[in-house]
Every structure is written in structure tokens, then in C-alpha cells.
């Protein structure tokens, strides 16, 4: 990317501010709760600002989800960069623990919005592409990692891993239980065991 001018940068920062506010509104009120007024209030900008950047509410919602997708892609990229170095030095267990930590790191609210977008993509065409990009990014990262560890069917192993993570996440949003994290860690280790064909022993 060429170096943006200050003026442009300020515009970009305001646009990002509006999108972050839209994400908060979606978390609080669902996709249908997004209005110019609600987003402008959450962003603490004049009412005209949101429509300056976005011609329609659909466009605004689409851009907010695209911003989440971009964030996911960046996270996943750094995960894979880390992965290259870690594979050599760390146990499979330690590696998987780290993978789970990174994937589950996004705040509960972001996951909530991400899932609202998944469900909303069946009725909002502008969400189809960013939503697929999010799922694809997670799955291809998981596929790469499990493939590197020797999974016999890396693609399905990757889908399995991301399904476990997202399945736990949606159940946890609906009904959090104290042992969620522990069970999740165990579930992920078993995913690895099931696909790597070797029994895992815990580091500690």
C-alpha cells in the first residue's frame, strides 16, 4: 500500500471508528439493530458521518463484517508465521494449546458478531463473501497446521478443528459453564489425536 496522505488517513480513521461502532451495535442489538442513528451515537460522530462513508445500511453492515474478516486474516497470518518456528521447538501439545489460545482470543463480543453474520448471510447477500472468507481463513490455517503435524486427511481435520472451536463458542455464548475452557482444550487435543493417529500425552 502506498503511503496515504494525512487527510486520507484521517478519513480512514473515522471510517474505522464508524465500523467499530457498528460492530458494537450488532453485538448489542443484532444485525437488524444497525441504523445510522444507532451507529453514529455509538461512534460519537455527527449523524451525517455514517452516511458520508456508507451509501446504505446494508453497505455499512457488509463493511463491518469485512473489517472483522480482515482482522481474522491478519490473526491467522501471524499464527502461521509463528507456527513455522514453533513446530520445530515445541511439543505438539504446547503447539495446540497456543493454537487454541489464539483462535479463542477474540473477545466474546466479536465472536457474537461473527456468528450473527454467519446466520445473517442467508438473508443478506453482502455478507456472503466476507463470511466465507472468515470460515475459509480459519479452516485453511487449521488445515496447514494439522497437515504440518502429519494429519492423514488435513482438510477434514482442519474442518473438524474449526467446527469444534466454533461449536464450543456458540454453546458458550448461549450457556457459559465453568469447565468450558478445560473441556475445549481436551476436545482439541482429541481432534489432533483422532487425525494424527498417535495418542497424545499432556505436557503437564
Amino acid at each position, binding site marked *: 500500500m502506498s503511503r496515504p496522505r494525512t487527510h486520507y488517513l484521517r478519513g480512514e480513521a473515522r471510517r474505522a471508528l464508524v465500523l467499530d461502532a457498528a460492530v458494537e451495535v450488532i453485538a448489542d442489538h443484532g444485525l437488524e439493530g444497525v441504523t445510522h442513528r444507532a451507529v453514529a451515537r455509538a461512534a460519537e460522530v455527527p449523524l451525517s458521518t455514517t452516511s458520508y462513508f456508507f451509501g446504505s445500511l446494508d453497505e455499512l453492515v457488509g463493511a463491518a463484517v469485512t473489517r472483522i474478516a480482515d482482522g481474522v486474516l491478519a490473526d491467522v497470518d501471524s499464527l502461521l508465521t509463528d507456527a513455522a518456528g514453533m513446530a520445530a521447538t515445541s511439543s505438539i501439545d504446547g503447539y495446540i494449546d497456543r493454537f487454541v489460545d489464539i483462535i479463542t482470543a477474540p473477545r466474546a463480543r466479536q465472536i457474537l458478531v461473527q456468528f450473527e453474520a454467519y*446466520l445473517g448471510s442467508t438473508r443478506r447477500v453482502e455478507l456472503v463473501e466476507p463470511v466465507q472468507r472468515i470460515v475459509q481463513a480459519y479452516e485453511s490455517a487449521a488445515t496447514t497446521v494439522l497437515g504440518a503435524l502429519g494429519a492423514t486427511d488435513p482438510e477434514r481435520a482442519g474442518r*473438524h478443528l474449526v467446527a469444534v472451536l466454533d461449536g464450543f463458542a*456458540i454453546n458458550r*455464548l448461549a450457556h457459559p459453564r465453568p469447565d468450558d475452557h478445560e473441556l475445549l482444550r481436551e476436545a482439541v487435543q482429541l*481432534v489432533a489425536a483422532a487425525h494424527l493417529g498417535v495418542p497424545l500425552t499432556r505436557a503437564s
Partner: protein
Amino acid sequence: MPVRPQSHYARGHARRAKVLEATIEVIAERGIEGVTHRSVAARAEVPSSTPSYFFTSIDELIGAAITTIAEQVVTAVDELITAATAGVVDEDEFADQLVELMSDARPQLVRVQFEAYLASERRPDLQAPVQEIMRGFDAATAQALRAVGVVDADLVARQFVAVIDGFALHRIAWSRGEEDRAALTAVLRRLLDSYRGEGRAPA
């Protein structure tokens, strides 16, 4: 002829059920926030005053609609467990039917179910029915796992439910047709083999 409250009641009951069915359809089409007395009445083809006759608030209406899904789930699961206990369906069929019940057979209901999961934090009326659905699935899955000799079936069940829910969620987000079901079946089989081989992960 004497007044027959029974049929009067039955008629009211049928209208209430119609309103709830319409509510589920509205949620599937427009999300939880799309539910209004007006949108539900239009969908149910009843006067716009009818939903508020049965339900005093929108949250109560949505909660009742989600409860009907929970009841259907629990009934279906009970029937399946009865069939399994009686030996009418074998292990493989049981697993297949459980997946069918939790995702395949009811794509629209799964979407509505997940809408309720996501909305339950901001709508407390949904928490009880949502937890009822989750308990129903957990119990059925635990039963299935016990039947094939998995120890600690109750905890392991939640892991299987997570996989099935995760696949269902991804199918909504990004369907890959036939491969979805094939991948889920393959994955559950592998997972089951690994549990049978080792029990729970060594502590």
C-alpha cells in the same frame, strides 16, 4: 346445544400454535429482531391483535416459539433413545439419526435455534428455552456414547455436540454441499474410534 369449552379451548390452542409457527418463520427469514406483532400476524394470516392476545410482550412470544422448538427436540430425542434402548435402531443408525435430528432434518429450525442462542444474552426470556434445547442434545448424545461404551459420556457428549453444532453453523455460513455431511460423518467416526481406543484424554 350446551356450550363446549373444550372445542373453544382447542380452537384457541390451534391459533396460538399458528402464531408460534409464524414466529419461527419470521425469525428464519428476518432474524430475531424482525419479530413484531405485525410481522407475525401477517405471516400467520390472523388479525394483528391476535399475537398480543396470547402474548403480552415480544420477548414472551419469541421465548414461547423457542420453547416449542425445545419441546420438539426433547420429544424427538426421547423417541430416539427409546428406540435405541429397545434395540430397534443399532449404534450406527443411532449416530446417524442423531446427526439428522440435530442438523440435517431441520435446517430452518437450526438457524432459528442459533439465532436464539446468540440473542439469549440480550433477551433473558430466551435463556430457559435455549438451555432446554442444549440439555436435550447433551442428554441424547451422552446416551448414544454410553451405548457404545464411552466412559464419562456426559462430558464427552458436550464435545460431540460442539462438533455437530460447529458443522451446522459452518454449513449455514458456507455450504459445501454433499461434502458437508460426508466430512461430519468421517470426523465423528474418527473421534469415536479415538475415544474407544483411549477413553478420555489422559490426565
